[in-house]
């Protein structure tokens, strides 16, 4: 053997090893894309067995199409291979971020999902056969097949292990998909500059590589923003509406059974059982003032409490004060939501005021027979101000002597001190109180406090027809508290101590995820 052929043999070995290493990398990438798609489908569509099974099936089938197509590929195989690598890198790499971004905006997400699965599968299916044809020169076929598939399967093993153990916990789905996209592009670069055969089109391919990597790197840098833009992961059900207003983030989700409203990620109601919550909020108070003509609602921009109020024919006017015009507009315009609140906000009797409740009660000088206070839970200091004695003093001015006020007061079971703190703060202003509670499946055990100016609560009116939850018996039993929700001593909630927010934080903390 002379020295020339020896060095030729060496360089052949070297390029052979190089190509085998490429097999290993692209095999790892290929399986990662499959896992990304499967995980994405089970995150977003639920039912992971079905999703994984169909995604894997479709992916393998697409790979089959790719392999078949490889038979049609002719000409410069290096060129084809590099091109395919860049394409796999970009398509596979961008699959996760693009699916995340599109999820909320397309009517049929499955079309997008399977389009990605098919395209990636076809491209991945093309890779190995073409690579084998490149490597075929100078190697015995049985060795070639043995080596290529060995590395193919090792790559697959590596991918299946690092995906759940390292990649998802440390990189997350979006960054994992992008990083492996870059690996594919890396293989393209590697081949492009390792083989003399590619000299002619190096410059053109280099432009493609630069473009592709730029897209992937940009995706990697902005992955956090992509995640926060797509909030789908935070909700169990399909998001059918979402909007950010200056005050809050409004999200509506739906599944077969129910419609749910979330404000800043907190559940406000589920259409399946909101009737329990709203009947319990409105009717006990209204029963004690059967001739009530003027009612004030603070909060409750969904119009569901108004729906209950409009069952009373004696009622002349309802003033609804809700901070966020987007809420009241949404519940006055959307046909689906109008069905839920029975077009209550469109009634002639209803007067909607979009302003903040504290300033409203400080400046209003009307008198009301019933006042319904339906604020979000006191989970931060600015909402906490709406549960202080100072606020109750101001509302007290607006309540008729024989009137009654009712306040939604969080869960007496989960947040026992918070609940009784609200009752005690009302008492500190001079109200007599009637605390009560009901069971709302999507919330759990829920509490309210009625407040009156010295008189007693006598629910003597006639209950309107069509109620599904409240009746005489329920009203009798709801004021009785079992020992695990019974009264506990608390401080009074004031602007300058905000004890309620602290109670609430402590009591709900174990329930935060």
């Amino acid at each position, binding site marked *: 053997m002379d020295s020339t052929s020896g060095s030729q043999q060496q360089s052949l070995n070297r390029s052979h090893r190089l190509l085998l290493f490429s097999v290993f990398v692209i095999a790892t990438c290929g399986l990662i894309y499959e896992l990304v798609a499967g995980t994405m489908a089970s995150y977003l569509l639920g039912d992971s067995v079905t999703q994984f099974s169909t995604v894997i099936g479709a992916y393998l089938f697409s790979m089959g199409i790719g392999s078949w197509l490889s038979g049609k590929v002719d000409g410069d195989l290096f060129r084809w291979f590099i091109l395919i690598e860049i394409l796999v890198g970009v398509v596979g790499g961008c699959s996760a971020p693009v699916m995340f971004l599109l999820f909320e905006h397309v009517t049929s997400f499955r079309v997008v999902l399977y389009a990605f699965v098919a395209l990636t599968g076809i491209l991945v299916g093309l890779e190995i056969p073409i690579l084998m044809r490149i490597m075929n020169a100078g190697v015995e076929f049985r060795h070639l097949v043995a080596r290529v598939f060995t590395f193919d399967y090792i790559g697959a093993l590596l991918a299946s292990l690092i995906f759940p153990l390292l990649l998802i916990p440390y990189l997350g789905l979006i960054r994992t998909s992008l990083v492996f996209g870059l690996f594919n592009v*890396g293989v393209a*670069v590697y081949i492009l*500059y*390792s083989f003399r055969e590619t000299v002619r089109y*190096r*410059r053109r391919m*280099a432009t493609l*590589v*630069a473009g592709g*990597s*730029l897209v992937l*790197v*940009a995706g*990697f*840098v902005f992955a956090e923003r992509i995640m926060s833009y797509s909030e789908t992961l935070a909700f169990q059900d399909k998001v059918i509406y979402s909007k950010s207003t*200056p*005050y809050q983030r409004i999200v509506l989700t739906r599944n077969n059974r129910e419609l749910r409203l979330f404000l800043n990620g907190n559940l406000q109601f589920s259409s399946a059982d909101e009737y329990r919550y709203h009947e319990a909020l409105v009717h006990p108070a209204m029963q004690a003032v059967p001739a009530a003509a003027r009612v004030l609602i603070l909060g409750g921009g969904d119009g569901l409490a108004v729906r209950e109020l409009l069952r009373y024919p004696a009622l002349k006017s309802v003033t609804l004060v809700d*901070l966020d015009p987007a809420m009241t507009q949404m519940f006055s315009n959307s046909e689906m939501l109008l069905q839920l609140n029975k077009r209550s906000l469109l009634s002639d009797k209803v007067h909607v005021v979009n302003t*903040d409740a*504290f*300033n409203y009660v*400080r400046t209003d000088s009307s008198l009301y027979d019933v006042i319904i206070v339906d604020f979000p839970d006191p989970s*931060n*200091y*600015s*909402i906490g*101000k709406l549960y*202080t*004695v*100072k606020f109750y003093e101001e509302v007290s001015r607006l309540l008729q002597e024989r009137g009654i006020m009712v306040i939604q007061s969080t869960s007496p079971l989960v947040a026992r001190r918070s609940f009784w703190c609200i009752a005690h703060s009302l008492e500190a202003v001079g109200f007599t109180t009637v605390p009560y509670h009901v069971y709302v499946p999507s919330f759990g055990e829920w509490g309210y406090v009625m407040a009156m100016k010295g008189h007693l609560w006598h629910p003597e009116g006639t209950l309107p027809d069509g109620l599904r939850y409240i009746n005489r018996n329920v009203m009798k039993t709801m004021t009785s508290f079992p020992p695990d929700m019974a009264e506990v001593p608390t401080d009074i909630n*004031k*602007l*300058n*101590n*905000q004890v309620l*927010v602290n109670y609430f934080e402590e009591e709900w903390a174990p329930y935060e995820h």
Partner: protein
Amino acid sequence: MNTDRPEMPSRREWLRLLAGVPLAAVAACSSKNPYSHITGGIAGANHKVGHLLRDGAAIPAPDEYMEREIVIAGAGVSGLSAARWLDRKGHNDILLLEMGERTGGNAVWGQNKASAYPWGAHYLPVPDAADEELAAFLQAAGVITGYRNGLPVFNEYHLCHDPEERLFIHGHWQEGLLPHFGVPGPDRQQIAGFMQHVAALKEEKGTDGKYAFSIPLDTSSADERWRILDTITFAQYLKERGYTSAYLLWYLNYCCKDDYGMGIEHTSAWAGLHYFAARRGRAANADHSSILTWPQGNGFLADALRAQCGNAEIKTGVLLYRVLPHLDYVELHCLMPDTGKSFGIRAKKVLLSSPRYVNKHLLAGDISNRISGQASYAPWVVANITFSSLPQGRGTALCWDNVIYGRDSVGYVYANHQSLTPPVGKGVITWYLPIQAGSDKDARMQVYKRSWNDWVKVIMEDLSIAHRDIHRFVENIDVWVWGHGMIQPVPGYIWGRERTAAMRPVNDRIFFAHSDLSGISIFEEAFHQGIRAAKELSGMS
């Protein structure tokens, strides 16, 4: 970074380029001025008009004169307080002159779409129930709404809402300003020991039966036992008593900077202790350490004082530049810098509620020397920062007062804190920096020289310690430079002879009122200085 591109990148270069793309992106972002989107400018600080006085510019003598009974110069808290008191005592010819465009002095305030905000003083501790004058004013202003069991009931809208204070220390926002998060046991013991020490001092009385430390400070005991503390620095005092904890000393240094514009090394020990031991406030509906505050800070109190000035006439934009005492009247020369016109006043009596460094230029000769003395002032830089949101670190949520451990600045107050409306994105914080370097004149010149861009950088770097990437959320920064922010109670100032000499009236015609004459720049002192001088003027002292 080299931007020349070779004809054809080699393989190695390609790899380097690929690896470098994320770095290059970062470099491209950081080389750009990260603050270029922030608007604002240097506000207020009309030191140029003031310097007309200092430089003795040739101002034409007035040719027109008016006659007035009482003229008060300076519509800060002491001047307004004097005008209010005199008006209530039935004086009906009072003219109050103010050089600036607005009244309020150190309590001036501003406003934008996000909130009203202070430019200086921003709170009042719940006052001593024994301070009847102050209580009467607060009741008329709606701050005290009544009395229960003999104790004042404070308006709950004005009491600082919860949560009040937090400190960023060891990467975490702890509740309260006394360091405790990650603070070792021995340090905590020293801190607790010091707080006990000052709590005991609060109740100490001298042989004259007066409290050792009181507000107004001239009502404190004359007992040598305590007055001698005015001859040493607070740092000396602490060292002698074995207080060595770095955390405790940081806290005390912070307190002195906050109230006196200088650290414990320069503050008189008497003044340092006064900060902790002079307040015996009580309330029916708040505890003794509670404070009162408003979105516009003490601008609320200054406006309330002005509203209680009755018939007193107030003229702003008038620079009083000369005061000439005569046997039976006082001649005043005034300039309106806007028009360049000057006029004169012949007043029966004059009350100068301007600071001592200004008075020096108004009067001549021996009197000038006597009233100006050796007063030194701390320059302050105050910035109002409008943001779209405030990224928070770990720990306690945004409070009214927010301090970062170990910094030159004394932190910031949140102007929207007292708001009853849920925050709609935007908010304003007011950031405070006392300038301590060098002699105060040098420090002042340094402060005036710095551009708005320099301040934005200083402020953003300071805040980014606790709020990562805060600059991205900041929309506007307005900066106010106070060349003479507050009087500094260095050793010997409060109980030295000069201070009492400076208070003495001239010919029973010119009277002096300013918190400079107390040596502590707080609302209560200015309020009482105004009343003291007004009493002297009307012969009631």
